C-alpha cells in the first residue's frame, strides 16, 4: 500500500487505543468522543484529498526512496516544485478542514530530519540518516499519519534544561540500552498526535555542551506504553461535548484545532526510531530547519487558507445584512485579502528561492527570510482579519442565540423577526456562528504562537537581513563617502 484511503485511515484509528484524557475523563475510543473525533475526521479529510484526481499534483508526490507514489505529507522536498506544492498543500488542507492538517508538523519535522541526519552522518560518521530513511520508507509504505512534537513544557524560562527543578519539563534521556533508549518528560501544544500512527519528536531548541540528555530526536508509536495525551479543554470543547446537535457549531465536523500535552513516562524507543541522541551541536540546526519549513507552510499558507474561509464568511455576512455595497465595508474586505495574500506571496517566494541544504544532501528547504516574513506578517495580519470579520459580522457574532432556538414554537418567531435582514434569520445566524468560531475563538492566539511567537521571527529577520549592504547602497545614492 502506498496511499491509504480515508476509509482505511478511519479503520486503522479504530484499532488505536492511546491513553487519552480529555475534559475530566479517559477517552475510550477516539471516534466515540466528540472532541477527539473532530480531530480524527480532519485527518480523514486530508487522506481523502489525496484520493481526488483534482488534487493529485498537490497531495501526491513520488518517494525519493522507492519511486512509489506517496502522500505529500510524507515527502522529502527534492526540488523547488516540491516546496511549492508543499505550501499549496498547506493552503488546500486549511481551506478544506478549517483546522490543522494534523500531518503538517510531522511533514516539516521529517524534512528537517532528512537534512540534518544526512549532515550528521557526513560529519560524525553516524548512521542516523540510514536509520531515518528506513523509518521513512516504512511510514511511506504504510501511509502513516505522522504528527510532530517540538515544544517542551520548558519550566522556568530563566533556567537551562539541566537547571530546572523539575527535569521532566524537557523531554530527556533516562537510560541507554542495547536495544533502544528510555525517555521521559513533557511536550506541550502538540497538534493531532492522538489520532496519528506515529509522532516525530524533535528537540525544542538549540542545546549546549553538557545538555546531551536533552538532545533527542525520535519517532514514537501512538500507543507506546508510558505515553499519555492530555487534551486541551476550553469553552469550545465544552460546547462540542455537550451540544445536542453538532451541526449547530461554528465548524461542525472538524472543529477547532485539537492539541494535547504529551507526557512521556519512561517510554522505550528502539534504536531504529532514534535519529539524534546526545549530539547537542546539531539540535539548533534541526530546530531551525524545521522552523524554516514550518514558517513557510504554517504562516504563509495554512493561515492564508483560514483567512480565505473568514473572508468568505465575512462577505456572506455583509450580503445577508445588506451592507455589501457600502464603500467602507468593501475597503475592509479588500484589506483582509491584502493581509492574507501578502503572506501567501511570501510563502511562494520562500519556495521559489528554496535551495538544497546542506549541499549534496538532496533535501530542499525554503528561503528563511521569506518564510519568516510570511509568518510574522500573518501573525499581525490575522488579528486585523478577525477584527474586520467581527466588525462586518456585527455584534450578532457574539450576541446571537442558539441556531436551534429558531425552531422553538414560542421564541422562534420572535427571533426570526429580529434577525432576518437581507437574508432569512437562519442564514444570518449560521454565518454569525461561523465567524464567532474564528473571531472569538482560539485562532488569533493560535496563529500568533504557531510556528513560533513573532519575537522569534523578528530575531531571525534581524539575523538574515544584511543591514550593512542596505546602508552601503543608501550612502552610495546619497553620495556619502564610506567610513
Amino acid at each position, binding site marked *: 500500500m502506498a496511499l491509504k484511503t480515508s476509509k482505511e485511515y478511519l479503520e486503522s484509528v479504530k484499532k488505536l487505543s492511546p491513553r487519552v484524557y480529555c475534559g475530566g475523563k479517559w477517552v475510550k475510543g477516539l471516534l466515540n468522543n466528540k472532541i477527539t473525533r473532530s480531530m480524527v475526521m480532519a485527518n480523514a479529510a486530508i487522506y481523502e484529498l489525496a484520493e481526488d484526481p483534482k488534487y493529485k499534483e498537490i497531495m501526491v508526490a513520488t518517494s525519493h526512496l522507492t519511486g512509489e507514489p506517496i502522500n505529500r505529507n510524507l515527502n522529502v522536498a527534492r526540488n523547488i516544485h516540491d516546496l511549492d506544492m508543499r505550501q499549496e498543500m498547506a493552503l488546500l488542507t486549511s481551506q478544506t478542514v478549517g483546522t490543522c492538517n494534523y500531518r503538517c508538523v510531522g511533514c516539516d519535522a521529517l524534512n528537517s530530519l532528512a537534512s540534518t541526519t544526512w549532515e550528521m552522518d557526513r560529519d560524525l560518521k553516524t548512521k542516523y540518516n540510514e536509520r531515518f530513511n528506513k523509518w521513512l520508507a516504512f511510514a511511506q509504505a504504510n501511509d502513516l499519519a505522522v504528527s510532530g512534537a517540538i515544544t517542551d513544557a520548558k519550566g522556568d524560562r530563566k533556567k537551562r534544561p539541566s537547571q530546572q527543578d523539575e527535569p521532566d519539563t524537557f523531554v530527556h534521556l533516562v537510560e541507554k540500552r542495547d536495544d533502544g533508549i528510555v525517555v521521559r518528560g513533557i511536550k506541550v501544544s502538540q497538534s493531532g498526535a492522538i489520532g496519528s500512527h506515529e509522532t516525530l519528536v524533535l528537540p525544542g531548541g538549540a542545546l549546549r555542551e553538557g545538555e546531551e540528555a536533552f538532545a533527542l530526536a525520535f519517532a514514537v508509536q501512538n500507543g507506546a506504553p508510558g505515553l499519555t495525551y492530555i487534551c486541551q479543554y476550553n469553552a469550545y470543547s465544552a460546547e462540542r461535548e455537550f451540544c445536542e446537535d453538532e451541526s449547530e457549531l461554528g465548524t461542525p465536523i472538524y472543529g477547532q484545532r485539537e492539541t494535547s500535552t504529551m507526557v512521556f513516562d*519512561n517510554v522505550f524507543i528502539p534504536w531504529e526510531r532514534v535519529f539524534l541522541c546526545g549530539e547537542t551541536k546539531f539540535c539548533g540546526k534541526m530546530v531551525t530547519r524545521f522552523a524554516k519549513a514550518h514558517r513557510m507552510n504554517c504562516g504563509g499558507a495554512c493561515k492564508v487558507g483560514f483567512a480565505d474561509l473568514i473572508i468568505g464568511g465575512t462577505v456572506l455576512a455583509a450580503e445577508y445584512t445588506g451592507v455589501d455595497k457600502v464603500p467602507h465595508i468593501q475597503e475592509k474586505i479588500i484589506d483582509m485579502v491584502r493581509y492574507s495574500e501578502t503572506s501567501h506571496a511570501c510563502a511562494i517566494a520562500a519556495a521559489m528561492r528554496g535551495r538544497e541544504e546542506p549541499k549534496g544532501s538532496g533535501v530542499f528547504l525554503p528561503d528563511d527570510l521569506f518564510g519568516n516574513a510570511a509568518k510574522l506578517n500573518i501573525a499581525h495580519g490575522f488579528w486585523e482579519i478577525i477584527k474586520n470579520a467581527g466588525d462586518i459580522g456585527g455584534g450578532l457574532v457574539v450576541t446571537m442565540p442558539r441556531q436551534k432556538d429558531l425552531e422553538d414554537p414560542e421564541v422562534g418567531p420572535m427571533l426570526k423577526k429580529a434577525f432576518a435582514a437581507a437574508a432569512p434569520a437562519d442564514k444570518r445566524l449560521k454565518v454569525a456562528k461561523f465567524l464567532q468560531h474564528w473571531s472569538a475563538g482560539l485562532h488569533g492566539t493560535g496563529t500568533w504562537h504557531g510556528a513560533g511567537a513573532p519575537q522569534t521571527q523578528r530575531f531571525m529577520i534581524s539575523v538574515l537581513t544584511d543591514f550593512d549592504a542596505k546602508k552601503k547602497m543608501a550612502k552610495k545614492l546619497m553620495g556619502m563617502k564610506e567610513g
Partner: protein
Amino acid sequence: MALENDQGLETIVVKIGREERRSSSGLAGTFASFVYSCNEKKAIPGFYEKGLIAEVQLKEGGMLLVLSGKRTEGELMEIMDIAFENIGAFPGVGAGAKYIIDVKSKE
C-alpha cells in the same frame, strides 16, 4: 536483537495453541518495544488495566506470554491485534528477523 534486513523490517508471529495465527510486519525494533512493554511496564500496548499479564518468559527468537483470566483463543488474538497496531506493526510478513510470541491464557 537479531540482525535486520536491508529494509529494516521484522516479522512478529503470534502463536496460540499449536497454530501460528497472525504475522505482523513492523520496523525493526518493534519486538523490542513489545518486550519492554511486557517486562518493564507490565502492560500490553494499547491496554491500561493492571494485571493483564500473568507471566512473561523470553526465549530464543521469541517469548512466551501468559495473560491473566480465562480467555478464548479469539480473545487472545484480539488483544494481540490491538497491541501490534498500537506499536506500529501491521498484518503482513516482512523479510527481516522473525520472532514468535506464544500466547496463552492463564486458566
